[in-house]
């Protein structure tokens, strides 16, 4: 009996210590220089995270990222937020993402999801689609489509998350 319990305990210990912390799916996509990037590595030292799905050919997506780029520095100072801009450009326009982003002068962490693997895993239907995560990687809020001025509402939510307040819908 003792042996069985001991064995069981050991098995539980082993399995659980390998459990995933964040609830983001683990999908291999790419960073801008072509290296494999696993999405479970999306982290920000316990501070809020934004994952923004976009594409170079999507006008509202670019508008949204442009609007946020104007105030990103202030947002970072205020809340410590980090933005991951995940491009779903496929191999037709994927190589164009780096020059596109740099010409705009965006400071986001840009990732490439050319076969929409991460997009599908996150159940995104259309771009733009924004997720707000708290420091533990838990999805607090998501939003699809972009209207001018949406970024102000997003900032309010980030502030709440940064302070650890509840976000109501």
């Amino acid at each position, binding site marked *: 009996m*003792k042996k069985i*319990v*001991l064995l*069981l*305990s050991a098995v*539980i*210990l082993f399995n*659980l*210590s*390998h*459990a*995933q*912390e964040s*609830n983001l*799916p683990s999908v*291999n996509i790419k960073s801008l*220089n*072509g*290296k*494999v990037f*696993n999405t479970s590595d999306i982290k920000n030292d316990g501070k809020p995270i934004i994952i923004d799905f976009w594409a170079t*050919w*999507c006008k509202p997506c670019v508008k949204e990222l442009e609007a946020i780029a104007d105030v990103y520095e202030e947002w970072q100072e205020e809340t410590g937020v980090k933005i991951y801009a995940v491009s779903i450009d*496929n*191999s*037709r*326009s994927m*190589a*164009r993402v*780096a*020059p*596109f*982003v*740099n*010409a*705009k*002068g965006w400071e986001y962490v840009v990732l490439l999801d*050319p*076969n*929409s*693997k991460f997009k*599908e*895993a*996150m*159940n*995104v*239907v*259309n771009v733009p*689609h924004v997720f707000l995560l708290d420091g533990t990687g838990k999805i607090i809020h*998501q*939003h*699809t*489509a972009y*209207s*001018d*001025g*949406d970024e*102000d*509402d997003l900032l309010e939510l980030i502030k709440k998350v940064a302070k650890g307040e509840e976000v109501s*819908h």
Partner: protein
Amino acid sequence: MKKILFIAIFLSSIFTFAQVKDAIKGHLHGNFNIDVQQYNEDSLIGANKPPESILMNAYGNFTYTYGNFSGGLRYEAYLNSLKGYDPSYNGQGIPYKYLSYQNKKGLGVTVGNFYEQFGSGFILRSYQQRMLGYDNAFEGVRASYTGIRGVNLKGLIAKQRLFWTTGVGIVRGIDGDFSINDIFKFDTKTQVIMGGSFVSKYQADKNPVLKLPENVGAGAGRISISNGGFMVSSEYAYKSQDPSADNGYIYKNGEALLINATYSQKGLGVYLSAKRVDNMSFRSDRGQAINNLNINYVADISKIHTYTLAAMYPYATQTNGEMGARAEIMYKLKKKSFLGGKYGTELFVSYATAYDIKRTPASDTSAIGVKGYEGYESKFFEIGDELFYSDFSAGLHKKLSKKFKVHLEYLYQEINFDKLRGELDHSGNKVVFANIGIIDFTWKIKSKRTLRFEFQGLFTKQDKQDWAMGLLEYTMAPHWFIAVYDAYNYGNHHSDMRIHYTTVSVGYMKNSTRIQLSYGKSMEGVICVGGVCRVVPATNGLSLSITSSF
């Protein structure tokens, strides 16, 4: 002593269980997408009312994750399928379902349905694009391993989705991605990544006349080198003899080469691309056509246009043979500079072109493209005589003040109707030449109230001749928008075809839900997403679209 140790281990395991239990609880996520359209008869624009009057495409996705395990399914309903979608979709069911295991040590296994891409997709890419009714999902087994530093390995054996069933062919493939710097621990600024893949398909030969290869193999190699703002990447693919309906059952190998080079620094982006494709159609059923059972995806070299009239004449890769090149420069004039103004100005110029490849007879006795023979020979660097497509665009994007933003663009396009569509225009012209102008003006009236105007003009002596288009969109963030657009074919040579295509749309958005209602006429055309195109028939009626994620 033993007892104490035993109790200690037991308690600590329970304690850990309590702590980690929360972290491994399961998560259910998903999304819905419903498109309903009501149709009116409108013989003038060629819109027919189907016998059902109302048609619907609907999708529901569910994914459940629990620790290292995940599973999911997609329900689809086409009752009946919207016009422009293949009626073979009519019906409903669960065509997509999978179970997957992915551990922290880098091992992943998926059984059931999945999507996959090797490299740029030259020899393997499965994906779905609902807008196009495109879905060549695999059904089988896939394994991947990323446990070795800098190495990413994948392998699969599967069949492919064909509407509500799977195709006859079996696809086997392996792919490896190697980050040289990580493997050899080179701590240099220059990063080198290499990759290679091999794909083979099997389909029985039941042809009474020809002796067809039952196993067809394709291999590809790729490399990308980056250093600071520079990056060069290339992929080459080769395919063994693969007589098919696409190539007219010729016994010739296939080849493809893609080279991309980019340079960028803050405020400047340069993008160059060149490509050659020869006999690279690759399907898991050699008899299939259109968008069915493609194993590979040969990326299109043309720029993706989002403005309606700029996208009037889209181009799609000619997998049987094409040579193309593209160049684009994006530049941002600095804020507060003489030319940049207070907010800076973005400028861009882009050019893309594609030609046929040069073909010569493979032998003195057989003509080009004769069924059952080698078909033709083609020198790698020789460009064919026939222009398929060319597209020049230049423009600027500028924030004028806190309230006003403007986007100006000019385009010049040449489209070979004869070669690409197998048709001539109304007066027997092979090639359409079009000048296009676009003005997009955004006025932020006050916080969260925005008015956007779009004016577009397309000027051509061929096809349906001149078009003008206007759009007015009023947005009340965060929830509502209303838009009216009108495309007017004022220059059509048939005076009774000088028609207004007018549509009114209202949309509501909240969190991850979006609902849009539209009423009006839309023109016949081709919509392309990511290089795959679908012909959309003219419609007149009411449409409702709902998307939601949870």
